[in-house]
C-alpha cells in the first residue's frame, strides 16, 4: 500500500505537470464551447452600419460598385464573393469570415467584421481535434485524466483521503452526473 501511495503521488505530480498547459487549454475551450448558443466562441463581432448612394442592383457590372463600396467601408482587397439572397438584398463576403449586407433599394447596409478571439480561437481549434497527430496527443491526455482520477484515490491516507473527506467528495462527484442522467433521460 505504501508503494502504491508513493507511485500514485509521483505519477499524479509528474504527469500532472506535463499536462498543465493542455488542461488549461481544454478548460478554456470547454467553457467557450459550452455556451455556443450565447456567443460566438471563435470570433468577436464588430458591427458597422452605413448608407450608400451607389447603385448595387443586380447587374453584370455591379462588382465595380461593390469594390468602390468596400474601399469606403473596409478594403476592396478583402472582397471574396457576393450574391443576392433576394432582389433587394446584396450580401458580400470578405476575407476572414466578415460580411456586408446592403439593402439595394434604400442603400442602408450593415458590415459584420469578425476578429479571432485570442487564445480561445486557438484552444477551440485544438479542442475540435484538427488532425491525426493531435488525436494521439489528446488520447494520451484523456488517458492521463483517468490516471489522475485513479491515483488521487490512493495519494492521501487518513481523514483527508478516500476513507474520509476525499471519499465523500468522490461519491458526490459520481452521484451528481447519475442524478442528472436519471432526471433527463
Amino acid at each position: 500500500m505504501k508503494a502504491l501511495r508513493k507511485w500514485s503521488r509521483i505519477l499524479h505530480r509528474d504527469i500532472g505537470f506535463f499536462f498543465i498547459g493542455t488542461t488549461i487549454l481544454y478548460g478554456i475551450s470547454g467553457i467557450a464551447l459550452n455556451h455556443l448558443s450565447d456567443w460566438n466562441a471563435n470570433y468577436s463581432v464588430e458591427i458597422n452600419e452605413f448608407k450608400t448612394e451607389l447603385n448595387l442592383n443586380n447587374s453584370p457590372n455591379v462588382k465595380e460598385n461593390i469594390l468602390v463600396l468596400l474601399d469606403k467601408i473596409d478594403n476592396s482587397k478583402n472582397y471574396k464573393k457576393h450574391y443576392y439572397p433576394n432582389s433587394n438584398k446584396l450580401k458580400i463576403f470578405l476575407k476572414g469570415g466578415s460580411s456586408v449586407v446592403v439593402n439595394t433599394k434604400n442603400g442602408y447596409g450593415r458590415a459584420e467584421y469578425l476578429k479571432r478571439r485570442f487564445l480561445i480561437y486557438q484552444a477551440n481549434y485544438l479542442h475540435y481535434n484538427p488532425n491525426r497527430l493531435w488525436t494521439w496527443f489528446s488520447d494520451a491526455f484523456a488517458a492521463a485524466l483517468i490516471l489522475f482520477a485513479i491515483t488521487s484515490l490512493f495519494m492521501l491516507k487518513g481523514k483527508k483521503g478516500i476513507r474520509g473527506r476525499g471519499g465523500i467528495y468522490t461519491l458526490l462527484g459520481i452521484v451528481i452526473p447519475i442524478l442528472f442522467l436519471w432526471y433527463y433521460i
Partner: protein
Amino acid sequence: MMKKIVLMLAVIAAIISCKNETKKTEAVQKENEVAVVETPEILIGEFDAKAGDFVSKEVKIQGIVDHVCKHSGKKLLVVTDDGSIHVTSDVRFDDKIKGNEISLIGTVLENKIDESYCLKMEEDNIKSHSEGASNKEQFENKKKHIQQYRDAMKAENKEYISEYSLQYVSHSIVE
C-alpha cells in the same frame, strides 16, 4: 503417354489463364468505364424541383458557402442568387470556407415532413426553449417554420412534403 498428358494439361492451363486474363482486362475496362461516368450537375435554383429524381444518388452543385454551422462545423448552406441547399457532412469544415465559391458533390437526401414530424418539432422546440437552449426569437422562428410546413402540406393537399438536402462527398474551390 505421360508426356502427352503433361503437354495437354499445359495447353489447357494456358487457355484458362488466357481466358482469365481477358476477363480481368474486361473487368478493369468496365471499372474504368464506371469511373468516367460524370456526376450530373444541378443548378441550385432547380434543386428542389429536380432532387426527387436523384434521391440516394450523387449530384454536383456549384455555389457560395453562406454559412458553416458554428456548433458542429458539419453543416453548410450553399447559395446562389436563385436558391440555397443545406449540406450535411461527417467531417468538420474549416470556417475559412465561408464566402468561397465551391463545386460540391453530394448524395441527395430526402426528408419527408408530415404531421407527426411537425408535432415532434413542436415538442422539441418547447423543450429546448424551456431549458434555455433557445431564446425567444429562435423559439418564435421555429414556430413559424413549423407553420410553414403545415401550410405547404395544406396548399399541396398532401400528407407530407419532401425536403431535399445533400450528404457531403467532396468539394473543390472555384476560383
